[in-house]
């Protein structure tokens, strides 16, 4: 296999690490900033992807929709109080064309609720399209394909 340009590899891995920490630290308002304006973010069950079915539990096809999600989480939605913890693998760069790069990475999101027990809440992989410009990578699209097709209680915080 070919080894990706180490600078590019570093940019993508840094983006993923910062993305996970942003959500885990509860800085939800910063989360949309990982995306370009005209973006797509979706969280979809692997059983749907494998069967060619498009329904996702979250489907946001603009940055504004990501912002709306965050405002709703802060002010409207009721969900179990919890911490999230993202563990994200090194990215595999699957292609590139001009400024656009495609990559995939495995993730596990652990969740700790008020009972103090940490559970594997959602495991899957990111399928990403990134725009690499001015020494930084931003997400054009991120599809979170989750193996954990039984969602515990509900899925509020983005993956």
């Amino acid at each position, binding site marked *: 296999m070919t080894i990706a340009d180490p600078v590019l590899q570093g940019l993508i891995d840094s983006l993923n690490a910062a993305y996970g920490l942003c959500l885990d630290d509860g800085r939800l308002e910063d989360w949309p900033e990982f995306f370009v304006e005209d973006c797509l973010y979706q969280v979809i069950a692997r059983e749907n992807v494998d069967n060619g079915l498009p*329904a996702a539990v979250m489907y946001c096809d603009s940055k504004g929709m990501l912002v709306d999600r965050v405002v*709703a989480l802060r*002010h*409207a939605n009721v*969900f179990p109080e919890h911490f999230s913890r993202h563990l994200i693998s090194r990215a595999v760069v699957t292609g590139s064309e001009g400024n656009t790069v495609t990559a995939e990475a495995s993730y596990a999101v652990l969740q700790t609720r008020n009972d103090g027990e940490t559970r594997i809440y959602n495991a899957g992989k990111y399928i990403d399209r990134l725009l690499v410009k001015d020494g930084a990578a931003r997400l054009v699209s991120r599809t979170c394909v989750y193996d954990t097709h*039984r969602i515990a209680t509900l899925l509020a915080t983005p993956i």
Partner: protein
Amino acid sequence: MNTQVRVEAQRSIPTAIDYKVYHDPEIFAAEQSNVFKGRTWCYLGLEAEIPNAGDFRTSHVGETPVVLVRGQDSKIFAWVNRCAHKGATVCRSLRGNQADGAFVCVYHQWAYDSEGTLVGVPFRRGMKGVGGYDKDFDPANHSLEKLRVESYKGMVFGTFSSEIEPLEDFLGPVMRKYIDRVFHRPIKVLGYSRQYMAGNWKLYSENSRDSYHGALLHLFYPTFGIYRQSQDSAGELTEQGFHNVFTVSKPKGDIDYTSFGDEANREMQGATKLQDERLLQFRPEIDDDVGLHIQSLFPNVVLQQIQNTLATRQIVTLGPDKTELVWTYFGYADDDEETTRHRLRNLNLVGPSGLISMEDGEAVELCQQGTIGAEGKFNFIEMGGDDVREYYAPMGMDENAVRGFWKGYLELMSDALSASTAEVPA
């Protein structure tokens, strides 16, 4: 005090249910036989999920695993997913196609056809005169346990009861009218999500029939300054109370938010505007203005149209405090790509991550946690009266359909519940 009198005085009624019903394993077991395997039709899936001969999907009736199969002649069958030999699970995939129509148990390779009839037993006559089954062994007596199956407008139901009326009568004309509404043209499945709640199935059944909580628990609309309470709305029930349907029509003009905001105890008035209003866009596609249709069919399914989302929510009862909700999302077969994308955008509103609905999962768990150790204590369901009416409008200020659920439930469960309450020690 005489124990019997005390027990009698504390029997559950539709306005006051003993919290024990959410926790007691014996009541849960009795529900499996009286409700799910009793005189009811349980939802199994959609015909559109198994369009071709040999297509199957696994499903549940209560806690019992069943398989839904389309046979070679396109007829649909359902059988319990339990080999007649040793009880092993026969069909191990969530869904698929069994092209040759045979379902073979991996353990000893007993083979069944799509109807669930035993068609093959390895070494039935033994080998070289040794072993095998007795000559009286009749495969016809060892088939999978078969359900009676009937469909209505593409919704497939099964029953273990030989006495129950036909499905159409069980649903009744009012429920059929609303099913017709959603299935007015062919559908296509868009996908699934599965939501697992650490709570009793009846808490979810109450939730989908409870209009009182709608604008109080789910604050998405008011957060963004969108008030939907004063639209035309109604709740309609079947006579036994079993089934319920809520409908809300699209607002016809300016709506007044103030009186509701004054009543609410949580911060309601939104200063924030939605950044992307496509999320809420509604394109009427049925010949009426109904923007919300939530139909609870006893005992195990909710059919919904909310904006342009269409879905069934199947309730799987895995234990007294373990309930799985299987969401099957669909659109119409003639949807173009843009319409599908619009539905996907609308789907943000519903399901386990639904902006206007995710709280239901939390509400179920809160009631489960809060009622631990509360045996002999009762809930209070008297909002909007203490009776069960076939029509209640507008919705939002009553618990009529919740009382209806309990009325139907208590009728099916009366013997089992009185047996269990009689055991309460003095």
